[in-house]
């Protein structure tokens, strides 16, 4: 689990090529391509309605893209075309896991149980698809103890050990966010996709989240995240991709993106002197 951070950096883990998604007459994503590098935190940003979540849903299999190719390269060199896999296979086989913009926890299960459900596939195999487990063979007992250890590891990382036996629905909002991330990590992903992880968090919770994300990256998983909160994006990400109206308008390091005039125009608004220019153009009736 503790692979060195820089061992395989700069190797592409996720390659999205010519991705398009059409909903009826609406082109939500139009010929969108980007790469995410292994060991990086890649951020996907853009104004409301730019199509960020649609890209996410395409990558994680909740939508089937109209066009395009999404290639995932695993650490051992195996490659998967995500658009051809079913949604649960993307987590099970290709090892990409995700969280949701509106938290989707199993609120009636305890925090620990949430993390055990995430290890379903490993435990299923260990229990001989339930048959051997029903007989109480030691292999399954050992596997379930290992699963609890793994859950403990992530509880500790997410700072939730104290609440392990409480129902997930009883946690405060920030803790629920961290639990959802810990749960996604319990599936043992190579790429973790986070949909607005900092939404609705107060500054302190936000700081705790940043620590968690950094420690996940240091553990060897790559992160792809959607974020609205620019301060979070600029602080933690290594690579930023900017999306507007379903098209990529900028791609690079946070500093590069921050100073890209296209991004400033699209995301932060148009600068003052440009406003004058546009007004002039308006007067001349060119727009």
């Amino acid at each position, binding site marked *: 689990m503790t692979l060195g951070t820089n061992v395989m950096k700069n190797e592409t883990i996720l390659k999205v090529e010519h991705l398009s998604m059409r909903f009826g007459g609406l082109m939500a994503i139009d010929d969108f391509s980007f790469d995410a590098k292994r060991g990086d935190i890649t951020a996907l940003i853009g104004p409301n309605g730019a199509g960020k979540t649609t890209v996410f849903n395409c990558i994680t299999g909740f939508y089937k893209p109209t066009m395009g190719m999404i290639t995932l390269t695993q650490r051992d060199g195996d490659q998967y075309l995500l658009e051809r896999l079913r949604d649960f*296979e993307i987590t099970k086989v290709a090892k990409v896991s995700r969280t949701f913009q509106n938290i989707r*926890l199993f609120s009636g*299960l*305890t925090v*620990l149980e949430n993390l*055990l459900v995430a290890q379903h596939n490993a435990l299923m195999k260990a*229990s001989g698809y*339930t048959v051997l*487990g029903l007989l109480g063979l030691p292999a399954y007992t050992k596997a379930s103890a290992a699963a609890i250890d793994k859950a403990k590891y992530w509880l500790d990382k997410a700072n939730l050990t104290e609440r392990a036996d409480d129902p997930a629905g*009883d946690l405060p909002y920030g803790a629920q966010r961290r639990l959802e991330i810990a749960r996604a990590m319990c599936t043992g992903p190579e790429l973790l996709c986070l949909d607005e992880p900092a939404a609705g968090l107060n500054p302190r919770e936000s700081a705790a989240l940043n620590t968690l994300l950094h420690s996940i990256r240091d553990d060897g998983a790559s992160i792809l995240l959607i974020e609205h909160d620019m301060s979070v994006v600029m602080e933690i990400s290594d690579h930023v991709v900017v999306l507007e109206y379903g098209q990529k308008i900028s791609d690079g390091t946070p500093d590069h993106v921050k100073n890209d005039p296209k991004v400033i125009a699209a995301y932060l608004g148009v600068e003052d002197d440009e406003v004058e220019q546009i007004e002039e153009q308006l007067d001349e009736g060119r727009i």
Partner: protein
Amino acid sequence: MAQSPATENSGLMAQAVKEALVAAAISFGLFVLYVGIETYQDINNALVWRTRWGLLAIFVVIAAVSRFVVVGFIKPHLDKRKRDKAKAGIPEVSDGKTFFQRNFLKLALVGLLIYPPLSVMLAGTQGSLKYVDNFGIQILIYVMLAWGLNIVVGLAGLLDLGYVAFYAVGAYSYALLSQQFGLSFWVLLPLSGILAAFWGIILGFPVLRLRGDYLAIVTLAFGEIIRLVLINWTDVTRGTFGISGIPKASFFGIWSFDVGADNNFTKAWGLSMSSAYYKIFLFYLILALCMLTAYVTIKLRRMPIGRAWEALREDEIACRSLGINTVTTKLTAFAIGAMIGGFAGAFFATRQGFVSPESFVFLESAVILAIVVLGGMGSLTGIAIAAIVMVGGTEVLREMEFLKHVFGPDFTPELYRMLLFGLAMVVVMVFKPRGFVGSREPTAFLKERKAVSGSFTKEGHG
């Protein structure tokens, strides 16, 4: 709190009287046609009517008096107790458990094991029939069915309104195969379960992509289809006549319960001829089947598949995002629930010695589902209690001869069982919206096992 206690009290009484009058008016309006007027046929077969003002008055007075008592005395008392508790800072749920609460399950099991000999001792061999058969076996069949449905509805959150179809498949499997091929109960019991599970999977494949209301409607339709096939496929099932003369189960092939057989149980043990021994044997058999169901349910809940069922009930999309194949997970829940229904069906057939489509109507599905909901979805104890209350309650109604003295000689109390069923459901749902046992036991824990309150768990939507 500015009022003095005296004025507060008289205000309360005035309100109680007012509400009692309203209740009386409402119950008068409700019952004036149903109870106040009765139609009957006279000597010329003409339909005429007469009034029953006395009975109507009893109904109205009961409504008024109970409303008065509730508003005037019970509610203030409960409020006061709640206020006192809040003042004293005692939490609503006390942690201390009595001996009875801690050992409830063990005591219940022991009670069930000694129930048949006890009823023989108290009521005699022949007299015990009623208690062992009508109460014991009848209730335990429903306990088993409800526990089976609990896997589908309570754990996996799939609303199945056609559960009785699998019960029918099990019953007819046993009835037909035992008559056609002469196979014994012990061969056919597992086979009936497997056939029912097979039908569960066949149904599951097309149906489980539906969710919520749609799933409920399709399962309802499936239940009806099975029943209509049983009625109309007369060559095989003999239609509405049903199949009679279904062989009895034997004591693992060692002793038979057939009267003419050489190895007859009563002969072998030198007992007097009575069907009570067979019923007692059946009682232990269904008890064993129930225990098997409970064991499997408890075991499976702690396995990954059981956790996946509960996760599915909580949030299906999150399940898929964690790499869980929701289709196979739903199918296993459906198949295992159906298998238990099939076991219960085979037992039902051998107990009755007769099966007909009459036994597998939609009402049965509804009753089983009502037991699951009343007991608290997912809770085995709660469901068992609900089955005892519901099924036992309707049996008790048959025994209430004294009601005839109150309501007249042609009053048949068991006709009112559905009314009471509905009433009980309304009452339980008002006071315990999550059923008798609304909380769930976690399947794994680090430090302490805390019950999860029902307010966090979901009912499922698929």
